């Protein structure tokens, strides 16, 4: 399944793009998607534990990804 992952802040700068597309074999989980992103983008290779979100809500790595889901990964937040 083809999955597009939104990236923010330092991750976006490291990748040079606000999103990255990866192809992931079943079963597609957030963990598997992120592993594919790390392989695709060497600058993110050291990021083993990003914060992950599915459809604009925090989600665990084992969350199943369905076609059309909005997936995002980002570093620890620092608003305020």
């Amino acid at each position, binding site marked *: 399944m083809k999955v597009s992952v*939104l990236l*923010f802040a*330092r991750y976006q*700068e490291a990748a040079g793009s606000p999103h990255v597309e990866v192809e992931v074999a079943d079963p597609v989980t957030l963990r598997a998607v992120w592993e594919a992103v790390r392989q695709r983008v060497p600058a993110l290779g050291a990021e083993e534990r990003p*914060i992950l979100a599915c459809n604009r809500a925090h*989600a665990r790595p084992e969350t199943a990804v369905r076609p059309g889901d909005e997936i995002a990964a980002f570093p620890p937040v620092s608003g305020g």
Partner: protein
Amino acid sequence: MPGLFRIVDGPIRLDQAMEAVAGPDRGAIATFHGTVRDHHAGRRVMRLEYHAYTAMAEEVLRQIGQEVRDRFGTDHLAILHRTGTLAIGETSVLIAVAAPHRAEALAACAYAIERLKAIVPIWKKEHYVDGSAWIEGCATGD
């Protein structure tokens, strides 16, 4: 739910937040302004840049609104956070909470800013005389 939960790319307006929370059955409005500080960890900061995952950030702000309602019994909450480049002294975040009495309003305001800093997908980048750095705070999504 009522309330005002917004990521904005221009100056934050206190009157907008006050209008969103004020009402005749509320005797207290507590506000918190976060402002851009000129130093961090011993370094001089020239300006700040905020980035947000806007769609999710506004969802999570609404979630904080639900938490405030459950814990403090008031729906009258406004949270506004800026993105883009901010000068020293500018307001980056504004929280306003109205409640019948001061104790709930003050406690809810303190709770809301701590939750925002812990879970809302917003990031700041500090710009120094000689470079810049992303600040990364809370590591959990809980």
